[in-house]
């Protein structure tokens, strides 16, 4: 007898849940009533399991052979994928996963990580701090003596762009294009970023076409960069990838292009939203903000609390390769599993008083960066960028205030803020 799957009338397919910022309440209910539950699919989208508890997300993240990434990590996927995508997936050698590190499975995945990991260790990041601080000051210099503006466009998006473009050796002129393409790739579901003239604004067709156009343009751009680096190697990440060997072979052009694409997207969008979301959280909790500004030595633990509180990535998805039971629910091979980080990071079984924003919270073992096999490669850079940004921001504009509410991204993947009006002084 097959047990019936537990469902719930909270529908995590509904992107408006995230737009309206009501998802924390939804997750609180789910943790209590249906911590492992099945969200039936629609005519277009696959059904999926949702994990709301911290422990369950640790379990899935730490079993990368049973819960694989190569069938897609950004959501449950479409029920009727395009034939060319199916063909491409089928042509892939078994056990190797996709060609991007984030959608790659063991055993190749960890080898790929080792090629670049040295550039991302805390030591490497610490060595870059003076440069990151200089970049932060440059960003704030550009705000100048403006009294008010859009914090996202002027500040929070600019530092992550500077840092990631710096690591990859891309010139200042490339920033606006990288900003635009990241928005197209990850914000494709939001009418503001939709470039494609297909379907209606906000439709799935428009989202898909926008993302595809953005990714194509990105590949085209990086193909040119690869040409330049082959002719004239440098010391940046792209040159390292070009020279690297894995199992005695160089990476394929596609693998390198996918890596560049991932770095630009993952390096930008998430850190940007941690900085914007951090400012919102501090503005909404004036006592905590005052405590921090009175004693900036609290910044490290404040950064951790900002990460827990904002959880810039809503989820990562896996596909089960075997039948597994979690909390009495039977997950079958081939089914999608979504790990909801904001829910794990407010799990009452792990965090005392999880709905309190506490800049000295200890312990604070949040998993905003995921955990295990695919643990965020850029966590050290993200932490450093957020830290240095708030140090410099409060030094320069100690009275910065929100001048209106955040304009949120329409996405169930990224906890994004598109615009944030502020008074700098």
């Amino acid at each position, binding site marked *: 007898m097959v047990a019936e799957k537990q469902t719930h009338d909270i529908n995590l397919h509904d992107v408006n849940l995230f737009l309206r910022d009501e998802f924390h309440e939804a997750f609180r209910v789910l943790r209590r009533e249906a911590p492992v539950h099945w969200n039936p699919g629609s005519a277009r989208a696959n059904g999926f399991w949702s994990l709301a508890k911290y422990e369950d997300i640790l379990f899935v993240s730490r079993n990368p052979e049973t819960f694989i990434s190569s069938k897609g990590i950004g959501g449950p996927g479409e029920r009727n994928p395009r034939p060319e995508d199916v063909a491409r997936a089928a042509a892939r050698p078994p056990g190797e996963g996709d060609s991007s590190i984030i959608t790659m499975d063991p055993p190749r995945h960890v080898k790929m990580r080792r090629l670049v990991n040295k550039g991302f260790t*805390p030591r490497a990041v610490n060595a870059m701090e003076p440069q990151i601080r200089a970049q932060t000051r440059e960003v704030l210099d550009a705000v100048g003596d403006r009294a008010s503006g859009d914090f996202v466009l002027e500040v929070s998006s600019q530092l992550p762009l500077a840092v990631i473009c710096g690591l990859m050796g891309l010139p200042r002129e490339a920033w606006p294009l990288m900003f635009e393409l990241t928005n197209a790739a990850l914000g494709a579901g939001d009418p503001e970023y939709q470039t494609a003239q297909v379907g209606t604004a906000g439709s799935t067709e428009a989202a898909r076409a926008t993302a595809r156009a953005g990714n194509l343009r990105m590949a085209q751009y990086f193909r040119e960069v690869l040409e330049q680096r082959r002719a004239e190697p440098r010391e940046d990440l792209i040159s390292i990838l070009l020279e690297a060997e894995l199992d005695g072979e160089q990476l394929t052009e596609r693998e390198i292009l996918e890596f560049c694409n991932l770095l630009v997207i993952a390096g930008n969008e998430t850190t940007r939203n941690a900085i914007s979301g951090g400012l919102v959280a501090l503005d909404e909790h004036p006592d905590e903000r005052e405590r921090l500004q009175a004693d900036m030595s609290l910044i490290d633990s404040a950064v951790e609390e900002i990460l827990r509180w904002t959880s810039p990535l809503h989820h990562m998805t896996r596909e089960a390769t075997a039948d597994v039971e979690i909390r009495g629910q039977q997950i079958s091979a081939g089914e999608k599993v979504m790990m909801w980080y904001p829910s794990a990071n407010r799990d009452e079984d792990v965090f005392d008083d999880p709905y309190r924003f506490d800049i000295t919270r200890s312990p604070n073992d949040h998993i905003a960066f995921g955990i295990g096999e695919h643990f965020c490669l850029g966590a050290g850079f993200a932490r450093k960028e957020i830290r240095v940004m708030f140090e410099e921001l409060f030094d320069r504009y100690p009275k910065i205030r929100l001048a209106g509410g955040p304009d949120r991204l329409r996405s169930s993947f990224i906890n994004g803020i598109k615009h944030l009006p502020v008074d700098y002084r």
Partner: protein
Amino acid sequence: MPRKVTVDALACEGHGRCQNNAPEVFQLDADDISRVQLDEIPDALVAKVERAIRTCPRQAITWVEG
């Protein structure tokens, strides 16, 4: 019985959370690999080691069985 703990040097990526959570037991070496400082873990440190195991992003830390 006192227990032993080990770090898989190939899995460790030097994130240093173990060193933050249990500095008596784990220290990063010059290559950013976590090295166990104690042959045997006294009872008083078991909880800290458990936490280090749980929070290591790369699952590099394990108890030595037996």
